[in-house]
């Protein structure tokens, strides 16, 4: 299982979405949550603090989720950070690209706390091995 104290970064350009995701994470017992509104901001936040997990949207201005993921994976300091990509149904075909770029898992919106928990458990199980 995972540590509820770990710092999580929620990335989405739409404030309501960040709030919804944060809310769901809180339901799962996470308290230490920070936000970023696009990939670029998220990337500099990641650099400056020790985050244990990233939940990122795909479609964002400035730097989208995939570019952000690639930036994280090519950064020696950050490349191990667990990364969950939030996608819309329509983007399912693009998921392959994300997996190639090293995403740990993806989740299709809208999702429930239950689904998010499952996905997170899967991610941390794999990492733990």
């Amino acid at each position, binding site marked *: 299982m995972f540590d509820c104290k770990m710092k999580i970064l929620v990335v989405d*350009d*739409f*404030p*309501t*979405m960040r*709030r*919804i995701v944060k*809310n769901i994470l809180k339901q799962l017992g996470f308290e230490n949550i920070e936000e970023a*509104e*696009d990939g*670029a*901001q998220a*990337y*500099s936040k990641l650099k400056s603090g020790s985050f244990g997990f990233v939940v990122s*949207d795909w*479609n*964002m*201005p*400035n*730097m*989208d989720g*995939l*570019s952000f993921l*690639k*930036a994280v994976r*090519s950064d020696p300091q950050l490349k191990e950070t667990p990364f969950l990509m939030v996608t*819309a149904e*329509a983007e399912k075909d693009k998921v392959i690209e994300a997996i190639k770029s090293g995403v740990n898992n993806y989740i299709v*919106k*809208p*999702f429930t706390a239950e689904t998010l928990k499952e996905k997170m458990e899967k991610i941390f199980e794999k990492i733990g091995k």
Partner: protein
Amino acid sequence: MSDEMEEIISEFITEAEESLDKVDPLFVELEIKGFDKDMLNEIFRSMHTIKGAAGFLGLQSIVDVAHGAENILKKVREGEIALTKQMMDATLKGVDMLRLLLKHIKQKDGKEEDISQVLKEFEMVLKQTEGNIVEHIPAQEDNLTAPQNLPEAEVEKHVVDKKETFQTLRVDMNKIDKVLDLTGEVVLVRNRLLNIMSYLEKNAFDDPHIESLFETVSFLDRITSDMHLSVIRMRMQPIQKVFNKFPRLVRDLSSSLGKDITLSISGEDTEVDKSVIEHIGDPLVHIIRNAIDHGIELPEERRKKGKSEKGTISISAFQKGNQIVIEVKDDGRGLDASLIKKKAIEKKLIKEDEAQRMSDDTAINLIFLPGFSTAEVATEISGRGVGMDVVRTNIAKLNGSVEVRTKKDIGTTFVLNIPLTLAIIQALMVRAGECYFAIPLSSVEETFKVLRKDIDSVMEQSVLNIRGRLYPVFELSNVLGNGNGKVSELDYRYAVLISLGEKKFCITVDELLGLEEIFIKAIKGVDTDLPFILGATITGDGKVVLIIDMAGITRNVFSTVGA
């Protein structure tokens, strides 16, 4: 529904609405410029985001509409379907439907909209263009090769560029207003302190403590002004928020009337108070509708007049002193003074002989009278029962004024003057009889001390000759009806030359007490429907003083004079 959910939903509505407002002008720009991937992407993203969040909140009809629009936009972006008028119209209808759906949720009216029509139109767009080869989209080839993500080398650069991001915080408006209100109180206390200081300065200057008190008070004075300005700034937003709606408005109306109109907008960065943003929209929409409907001629007519077939409406905003000026200018046929007079007589707003004496300038201002509308046939567009009088009333509520300038076949310009902030104003303090009043300085042009014998009378109206121009004169006590019929026995009066829009007149009072920065307080619990009173304030010496609404006075005195 839990409070948390309710809060999230209301946040969603605000953000979704904001996002839709940004989309409208993009559509219009797309229509003018043609295919543009960045713009399409931005519109697509708005739809996508709204859909995503709505899905979480269980707002299914919003999901459906946003999904349909998103689908079309995606196909256009990918070059699969063409950017056609039909496609634009359908998508815009979708945007309107989203607005409507959001409105219902916001008002909790439980109303449901039939979205099937909109969805059907989406389908038609998809069907009609299906299988067609899209030819006229120049960026199509790019589409095939350029994936959405940036090349990695650019990623690094982007990160560096974006380091200094603005941090924003959403704060409940009530909290900011509370701070503004308290700041207003501090301003009032500061004023009182300054008043006491000026007394001490004259009477107790040899006390060594006084000097350090002076310093402290003048320091407080500066800080208070700075603080006040900062709080006012918190409430300010760029007027772009309002202007963004206009390209779409002009596009829709002009095409439905068969007119060709270019809209040019400038000064959209000008910042104004939030309440101005909220209330200026409707009057401006009305003025623009009128310009499109009555002002700009049909292409045929314009050609005959030797004008360019394309009409132009320009909207601009700029700051002038502590006023915001908004101009709406069209190059249409202009207002016809004689036609206006004729209409006004028909509607029994003025009498035949009045009309004959009336100057063209005055006649044109008749359009601001309640019940006036020149449209031969009340069209769906502008003749909907709200007229220019509503425009003027709305602007007056913002403490502003509206003027109209017009020239036959050259065009018409509406100029709106609105104060920067609604809460604090510079005022001239005056005494009339035993009462003290504050006159907003924005309407004061000059003050004079005049001898009673210099005030003449023309046709039973008192007038004053100032540098060769005659101005009507009104005694403040008489206008307000608090003079008890008693006329001051002094042989001189103080005259305040009031200038409001194009109207100029003098108000005479017993004494001028000087300028003061006053904080307008609404009068609660008392009937303030009095057209002459804007509110009340507490002066530096602790008196409660009524603030005079010069726009109200102007309307009143000129309705009796008819000049």
